[in-house]
């Protein structure tokens, strides 16, 4: 890895101010993803600003500091009760060792696992090259996107993001030019050439807190993922789903797909298929079909569509049983 200067920030606003004055800096949460990117020289920053020790006021139930570890989040009883999808996603992530170090903010801002992105021997549009090595007939793309963006076939790696989007969490961001709060679903953007970062965060903008609402939707939420290996694997497909049922009918629904596109994907057609309908076998099947109707899988990853549909059905069937 290239040499860099290392700073530790006492608060997120202080870190944001420091980053604003730097030209080639990155922020570090737990560092579990960043370290690998530095070692492979995918990222070669001059400065690394650690948020690990930043003090964040997050004592209120449902408020998650960005520096909370996945293990702490998984152990939060309020979250477990009020946002089961978030609890399960945190609890299933990675390994116990990584959950003890990795942070919520870092999980949301992590880079794709695309092996072409992470190996500088290959062309990658995210890294600024004209081509995407994943988008040829002979590429290896069994874990890549089934909803590829024209320029990029990477799959988004976060399992927490779909869950937070499904429960309609709010992300609070800090920047010297002004703070803002946005729906977790608006955090991510479509990829473009040369844009390593997947989020809409401006240079120097940092996530400080996430708030999970106390809502019927969040309480009736679930997260299911499919991975080939039980011990330490990223999911090949994940589904976070939440419904608000009143009077026997779905009045609000969120279905979010993970690892199928360069960003977590709201399956809005599937959500619309449910709203105004009772949650039953027929509507569940219709929603699952709608969720992947627009999928354009690559030659090695058609299986993700089949499994993805099945996961949507399993997630919704789980919500049907939930009280």
């Amino acid at each position, binding site marked *: *890895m*290239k*040499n860099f200067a290392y700073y530790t920030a006492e608060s997120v606003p202080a870190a944001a101010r420091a980053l604003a004055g730097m030209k080639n800096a990155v922020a570090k949460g737990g560092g579990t993803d960043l370290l690998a990117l530095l070692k492979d*020289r995918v990222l070669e920053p001059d400065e690394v600003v650690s948020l690990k020790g930043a003090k964040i006021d997050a004592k209120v139930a449902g408020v998650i500091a960005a520096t909370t570890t996945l293990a702490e989040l998984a152990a939060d009883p309020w979250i477990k009760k009020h946002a089961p999808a978030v609890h399960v996603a945190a609890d299933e992530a990675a390994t116990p060792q990584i959950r003890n170090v990795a942070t919520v903010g870092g999980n949301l801002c992590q880079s794709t*696992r695309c*092996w*072409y992105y992470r*190996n500088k*021997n*290959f062309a990658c549009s995210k890294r600024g090259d004209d081509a995407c*090595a994943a988008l*040829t007939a*002979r*590429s*290896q793309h*069994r*874990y890549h996107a089934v909803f590829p963006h024209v320029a990029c076939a990477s799959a988004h790696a976060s399992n927490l993001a779909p869950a937070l989007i499904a429960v309609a969490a709010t992300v609070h961001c800090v920047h010297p030019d002004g703070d803002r709060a946005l729906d977790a679903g608006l955090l991510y953007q479509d990829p473009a050439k040369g844009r390593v970062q997947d989020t809409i965060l401006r240079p120097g903008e940092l996530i400080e807190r996430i708030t999970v609402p106390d809502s019927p939707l969040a309480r009736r939420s679930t997260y299911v993922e*499919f991975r*080939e*290996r*039980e*011990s*330490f*694997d*990223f999911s*090949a497909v994940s589904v976070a789903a939440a419904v608000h049922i009143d009077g026997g009918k779905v009045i609000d629904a969120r279905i979010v797909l993970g690892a199928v596109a360069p960003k977590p994907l709201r399956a809005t057609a599937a959500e619309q298929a449910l709203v105004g309908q009772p949650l039953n076998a027929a509507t569940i099947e219709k929603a699952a079909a709608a969720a992947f109707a627009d999928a354009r899988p690559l030659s*090695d*990853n*058609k*299986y993700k569509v*089949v*499994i993805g549909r*099945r*996961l949507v059905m399993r997630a919704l069937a789980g919500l049907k049983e939930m009280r």
Partner: protein
Amino acid sequence: MSDLKLGFPGNEKNENFETPDNVAPPWDATTKFSVMGKPHPRLEAEDKVTGRAKYSYDIRFPDLIYAKMLRSPHASARVKSIDISKAKALPGVLYSEARQGLTVRYAGQGVAGIAAETEEILDDALALIEVEYEVLPCAVTVEDAMAPGAPQVLNGPNVGGRPGRGKERVDAVHKDADIVVEAEYRTQVQTHSCFETHGCVCKFDDDGSLTVWASTQSTFFTKTAIARAARVRPENVTVITEHMGGGFGSKFGADDWDRFCVLAARATKRPCRYLLDRRAEHLIAGNRPDSIQKCRFSANKNGTLMGAWVESWGTAGVGRGAGVQNPTIYRFRAAGSEQKDVRTHAGRGRAFRAPRHPQGVFALEGMIDEVAFALGMDPLALRQKNDAHPVRSAQWPVGQKAIGWRKTPRGNGAVKIGYGCAGSRWGHNARPGDAVRCRIGKDGSVLFANGSQDLGTGTRTLIAILGAEELGVPLSFVDVRLGHTTDPYGHASGGSVTAPSIAPVVKQAAWLAKRELLEHIAKKIGGDPKKMELTDGDVLGGKKKITFKQACALLPVDSIDVTGDSRNVFRVPRFSREVAGVQFARVAVDTETGLVKVQKIVSVQDCGQIVNELTVRSQMLGGVIQGLSYALFENRLLDRNTGDMVNADLLNYKIAGARDMPEIETIPFNVAQGGTTAGVSSLGEPATVPTAGAIANAVSHAIDARVRSLPITPDKVLAALGAL
């Protein structure tokens, strides 16, 4: 003339055997052991779990320098120029090499090398090397390399291999048979993924002698190879391998990177360390070749196997050795194969735990199941009907009972539960040539020494147990020194030769030392040394009973120092021709997602004469774990455009982890085998051979559709179910 009783309960036979005067009497089925056969923790167990054990990877010196090579990102290219000047100008860079004009044949091939004061400087220096390549077309897959107009990988044709013999006979048998079954099976490339990567630490002393701490399966091969590379006389080279973090057949000598390391050490007069990083370990340090196996088997309606013909293609990258051990195990009227060995632009294949066998058995046992289903026969019954091996014939019912064998799959809803089985065969690979030193000190100390290494299988403990048993002392009295080439010669650990080969030699060394001790003691306490014995730490049969320690104290010399060798200890009748094993699997398959969860594996393994029950079980467990990982997960994925490996890490190169483990029931089958005076057999390799075949058969049983390709990933299961 005395009788030797060989075999196992239910199948024993007597052989006439006369022990020569100068040879330790052989152990047989009637021997009452006091140390052998029980479960003993490894002598170094505590060192290993506490981190005290120093592997070659851990060797450091205050003035140590670090070496590493820059590796080609292209699988096929010509190096037009290398500019190493910026790297050399970096403070702390001490030594370099640039391979101008090199023709690159596989991604990961070393193009330039650097040695530097620290690993950080080394990393920066490598990034400063500028290489201009002329990229050439590459052949990444077997199909690529066989296509018309394919780029030639090396001199000579891409396709080599062994011509098939006897196809006419097999075809004739097929014609006479009631049914013929045809199918194509495929297996993937598996990398060894040794926990401790390949490499060494080299240190020259002021007198020009060289010490090498190597991670190797052969200290003596490494010694010769390093001496040649460094142009040092072999007698001035010592190779040390105190502990080994895995080899699996990939570490038989000095490699390109070891040579660079020793040259850097010599040029700088500093100790130098080069152990590969994980990426290089995957790319260039060996792999199990892949295979495409076109099989044609036939049988008669009464369940008699008739003909078997296998035509195979596979690639060991730029190397050779991509055959499959197939068809075998069962009695066929006529059987044979034609195996094509196809060169591709990829890292060289190497011997990998039972080379050729797991891939061959996967196809063979799949075909046996397919024949059974075509005949409407229970696949286990078909195997038993056509298996003549005395040990395996006894193992099938043992495994059947332990797994709870069922003809019909179970399961309601999406998850189906299926059962499968497979067999294995291996050689009794006892090889003459080892020598072992035994030293008994006046202070009561006992040391056995051999210069070869403990591959991680428990050889150190095995030697101690054999020595203690023959000497007649408790295990705690015995020390073992392994892995220093200053001690007597020992074989490379490959072909599962180590235990069967060294066991009778340890026994012989202990027996010689014991005879010498008793002769000394007889003179001191009175008695006939020929009638005296050492048992459980006591000297019996003399005029008075004394302990072993008291006896040692009476020695008129500082120590007894004898060397046992392999002369005469291998001329003992043998019970059976081959090592036999069977495994059974029970799996649960989610038919909606294609996910396979192995619930249970039963491994029944012929172990010959068991020395240490604990490490025998450990070998059997390891074989099942590695076989399961091969069956479901491991797969070297090369980018099909450039030939570079896309999953050269331990995240996307998936190896089964703790949560993927099934219940594993190990049933060691103790057989008084003979063959040597110790009767110990080969175990490490056969223990992994049937696992993938048994799992694959269980998956196919569960879903009533056959998956003929490894690894059995969810997409393949879904495809077999017609869901893709």
